[in-house]
């Protein structure tokens, strides 16, 4: 029987964790860009566009991420395109992130008091100028903590990619635990690695949140 040391397990998990990080970053940045476009779309206040984007958000917030990953993986396969897990997972996670970020950011813009909009309007600023010079700078400040916090959700979401065969930290955990017959150690290790990735980010988001609420209280 082959003996596996803790270091063997740890080392292999760490290698797989790379892909978790890469996938998270791609989804977060891509999702942020798409989410920003969706936000601007909602702010134009064109009836059908606003409703369509609201529907898009409801779709991603009201269905399991696992299902979204399945649909991306098998949906693209329908067109005969033999797609690697990378493409389908990246697509699904990017769209998922874009829906949640668009909603978070919309909430931040909505939190800006109506008086700011009215003051800017009264000074003859165009809608674009009102957004760019008065509303966005203020909304950006309060958007940073929840946006940073959502990064944690994205990292956790990459764990589901394992189910469609994408080799990241969780899948590696599955594979290694099957080989070593040490599931307790392996999954404890996997959990701690996710914790090591996520907890600092959570702390940072909490710190940012406190900084902003302190500034507001002055």
């Amino acid at each position, binding site marked *: 029987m082959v003996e596996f040391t803790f270091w063997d397990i740890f080392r292999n998990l760490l290698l797989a964790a790379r892909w978790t990080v890469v996938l998270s970053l791609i989804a977060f940045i891509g999702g942020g860009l798409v989410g920003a476009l969706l936000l601007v779309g909602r702010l134009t206040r064109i009836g059908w566009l606003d409703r369509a984007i609201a529907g898009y958000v409801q779709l991603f917030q009201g269905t399991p991420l696992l299902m979204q990953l399945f649909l991306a993986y098998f949906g693209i396969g329908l067109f005969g395109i033999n797609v690697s897990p990378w493409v389908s997972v990246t697509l699904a996670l990017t769209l998922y992130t874009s829906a949640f970020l668009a909603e978070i950011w919309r909430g931040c813009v909505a939190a800006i*008091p109506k*008086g*700011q909009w*009215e*003051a*800017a*309007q*009264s*000074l*003859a*600023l*165009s*809608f674009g*100028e009102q957004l760019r*010079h*008065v509303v966005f*700078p*203020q909304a950006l*400040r309060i958007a940073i903590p929840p946006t940073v916090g959502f990064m944690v959700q994205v990292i956790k979401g990459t764990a589901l990619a394992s189910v469609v065969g994408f080799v990241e930290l969780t899948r590696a955990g599955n594979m290694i635990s099957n080989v070593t017959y040490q599931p307790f150690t392996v999954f404890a290790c996997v959990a701690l690695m996710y914790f090591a990735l996520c907890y600092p980010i959570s702390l940072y988001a909490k710190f940012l949140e406190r900084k902003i609420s302190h500034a507001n209280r*002055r």
Partner: protein
Amino acid sequence: MPTVAETPLAGGRPAAAPVSGAPIVNITALRKSYGANEVLKGIDLQVARGEVIAIIGKSGSGKSTLLRCINGLEQFQDGALTVDGKPLLHESALAMRELRQRVGMIFQSFNLFPHLSVGRNVMLAPTLVKKTDKVDAAEQARRLLLRVGLAEKFDAMPDQLSGGQQQRVAIARALAMEPAVLLCDEITSALDPELVGEVLRVVESLADEGMTLLMVTHEMSFARKVSDRVIFMHQGRVHEMGPPAEIFGAPRTPELQQFLSSLHD
């Protein structure tokens, strides 16, 4: 027709306001509803250039709504509104932009932009809308801040100022666009009593210089002293209108009498 100010004995401003030419704001049969609730039930009003008008009345009488219709913050359903000869066209962003360069507004809650310094608050609109050069805009801002007594606060942030100071910056900010008409929506109602005077002094000086002012206000003694005409609004209509001496000294309708006596309680 717009009136000339009264003699000093009866109240109103001592200097006569010139009253020639077409009215700068012309409102005819204006109606506005929020859903099923009609808030303005047919307003007729002509404001002469240089005139100072105080609008008084109970809350819910439609005073602020009327003011907000004049600069397009509220849309009306019926009637006509022209400013400086040009009718209000809500659908045209260009027309609204033109309108708001001629009509400025000061708000009860100041609404200074918290992320910009005092100076930048004043400079923002001229640089964006009138494409004023940054250096010229800064100079204009300093001049206006001096005028409202806050020259040294150019680089301060709004949250470092008192309420009265913030409101004076708001006035400077509106003046930077060189409007023909200034709308003041209860601009001292949110201020601590000891800060009200500094703001009213600035407004009085604007009136003395010939600025056309429409003020919704609860400061009755100020209205009596500074305005050419007082309008008492009741349930969405102009209930009584006249020189301050008449309105405050000899109210004709029971509603106005009741309103004035309730102020003394």
